[in-house]
């Protein structure tokens, strides 16, 4: 077997469920209560911790989901322009799965200004813009 199986599992009794962030959360779709896409999970915001860490410091907790037009920063590096970040508090999360389901409808969540600008300025002005294709 590969070497890392020589290591054993930590003898810690886990109350809850272990989840690898990059594997099972990051880059997954975030959808609202009706299943409508709100964005892709670009990052998770954590509580800050001192540096260096004194022994016994409690681990940071996830405070909010972060999504927005920052995927390019993640790829090409560089700071995130804070203004563009859309944050959704963790308490809005309803279920973790193939997509991250939220408990609130999209209308109550921070949405991208591009989407609303294009909708109001362009789409609604074209005849049939509000008509659901039959």
């Amino acid at each position: 077997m590969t070497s890392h199986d020589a290591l054993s599992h930590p003898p810690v009794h886990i109350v809850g469920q272990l989840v690898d962030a990059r594997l099972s959360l990051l880059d997954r779709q975030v959808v609202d209560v009706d299943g409508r896409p709100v964005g892709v999970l670009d990052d998770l915001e954590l509580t800050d911790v001192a540096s260096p860490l004194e022994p016994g410091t409690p681990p940071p907790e996830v405070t909010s989901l972060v999504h927005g037009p920052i995927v390019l920063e993640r790829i090409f590096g560089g700071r995130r322009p804070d203004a563009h970040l859309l944050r959704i508090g963790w308490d809005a999360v309803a279920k973790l799965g193939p997509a991250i389901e939220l408990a609130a409808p999209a209308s109550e969540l921070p949405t991208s200004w591009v989407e609303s600008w294009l909708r109001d300025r362009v789409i609604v002005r074209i005849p049939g813009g509000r008509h659901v294709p039959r």
Partner: protein
Amino acid sequence: MFLGDLVAAPVLQDGRRVGYVADVRLLVPPHTPGQRVGTPRVYGIVVCPRRTASFVGYERTGVREPRLLAAFFRWRARGSFLVLWPDLARVGENGVDLRLDARRWSADLDSRPQL
């Protein structure tokens, strides 16, 4: 602090680089009133000796299919290990420092995550 800063950050022990953060393992506790999913907290970090995009996940989950691809990805992420939060000395902008006596555990997610 953003979790994205930790991902793929170099991991140092005693000044020597031992690998990169392949993933950040979170513990999702039972939810408290007023929320449906418990607030996750950092349980530990998965360290991989190479800077591979190893999140394809084969090296940590029970999935072994399709056979050859799974073997390839497991081989590529060989030597990965888990370090629990208490064993971390510093989490900063340019990387993570492990305590000198940091224990290395198996990176496998032994129980299937009930996602």
